[in-house]
């Protein structure tokens, strides 16, 4: 199965195409703003208020939720919409793929496949809760802060954007790889040094 990658690529590409054909281009990162906004407006109910004079029907004291005639404010108040449910459905599909893969490897365990190896569990002696999860948390923070600033992520800007010939998609991709490649190399060097000591 040397050409498996083409199959994987065609499925991924087909999904991006189907999404824009049927509804709209795929985007994920906005929904992080929506979910954090739901928490925000639950704790502080005054941040988003009803305003009938607007198309969206909402107004917010927060400039971001209020942007584009309160578009985000409306999504926060009515989260059962296409974009939000789309993102909630992602783990379901991924879990299905996970189960299928596990089933496949269980039935043919003589045939070892590198890709199906589960991520090795961390040795229990090493590291505590914070050392294990703080880097992931911090990484997520940086990723979404950057994605919201750029108004899109790998899905929205890079994949959906470049597929449509969007100039911002190309610019985003160039900027991302400019820092991502050196960062990935430096992080590996640092961790190898620690492991090797």
């Amino acid at each position: 199965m040397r050409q498996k990658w083409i199959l994987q690529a065609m499925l991924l590409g087909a999904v991006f195409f189907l999404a824009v054909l049927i509804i709209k281009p795929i985007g994920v990162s906005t929904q992080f703003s929506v979910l954090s906004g739901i928490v925000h407006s639950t704790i502080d109910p005054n941040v988003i208020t009803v305003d009938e004079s607007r198309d969206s029907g909402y107004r917010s004291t927060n400039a971001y939720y209020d942007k584009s005639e309160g578009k985000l404010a409306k999504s926060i108040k009515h989260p059962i919409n296409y974009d939000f449910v789309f993102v909630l459905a992602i783990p379901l599909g991924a879990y299905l793929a996970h189960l299928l893969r596990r089933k496949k490897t269980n039935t043919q365990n003589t045939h070892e496949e590198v890709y199906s190896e589960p991520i090795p569990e961390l040795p229990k002696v090493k590291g505590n809760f914070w050392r294990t999860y703080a880097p992931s948390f911090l990484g997520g923070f940086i990723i979404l802060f950057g994605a919201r600033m750029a108004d899109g992520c790998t899905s929205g800007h890079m994949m959906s954007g470049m597929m449509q010939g969007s100039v911002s998609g190309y610019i985003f991709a160039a900027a991302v790889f400019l820092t991502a490649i050196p960062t990935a190399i430096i992080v590996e060097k640092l961790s190898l040094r620690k492991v090797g000591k």
Partner: protein
Amino acid sequence: MRILLAIILGGLFGFALHFAEASNPKKITQMLRLQDLSLMKIIVFAIGFASTLLFFADLVGIFDISHLSIKGVHLGVILGGLIFGIGFGSVGSCPGTCVAASTGDGFKKALATVLGGLVGAFVFSISYGWFKDLGLFSVMDLGKLTLFSISDEFPSLFSMGFIGLLITGVLFMAIAVLLPTNPSFGNSTVTETKQTDIGDL
């Protein structure tokens, strides 16, 4: 109906991400260290393939161009992209893939990334007004610029329409096929034996 489609398409997307192993942070970091470019091949080919399908959908007249959605160009795209890259490179995850990875292997770390992402998105929401006043979104504002004139709604660089998407689409797919999976300049043998990720620090 739209909600049902959201579940189907979102589920398909999650399935495709997992199937392509894009939800595995190790695959992403190995790609970024230029040691294993198989995921890069997949991404580049997928973009090209989707572009080509768009061209044909338009050709046979089944594509509704009001579905197109182009994001604007401004300084925030560059700065945000540079910041994004630091996180992307260090944890090997992005908004879509960490959501996809929140089930299955490594889900605890993925959930930590999702939580961090929610806080990051929230801090941005709070600071948006400040960035806006600084002019982050108005400097270098080129609007919703596209390469090819696929819709009157957006300004474009070249007036060749959807045929441009066919050209870039085929080009992307060709590049993907030609890209080596294991470039010789990456020390791939090191990572085969010592797979590391930031969590092992």
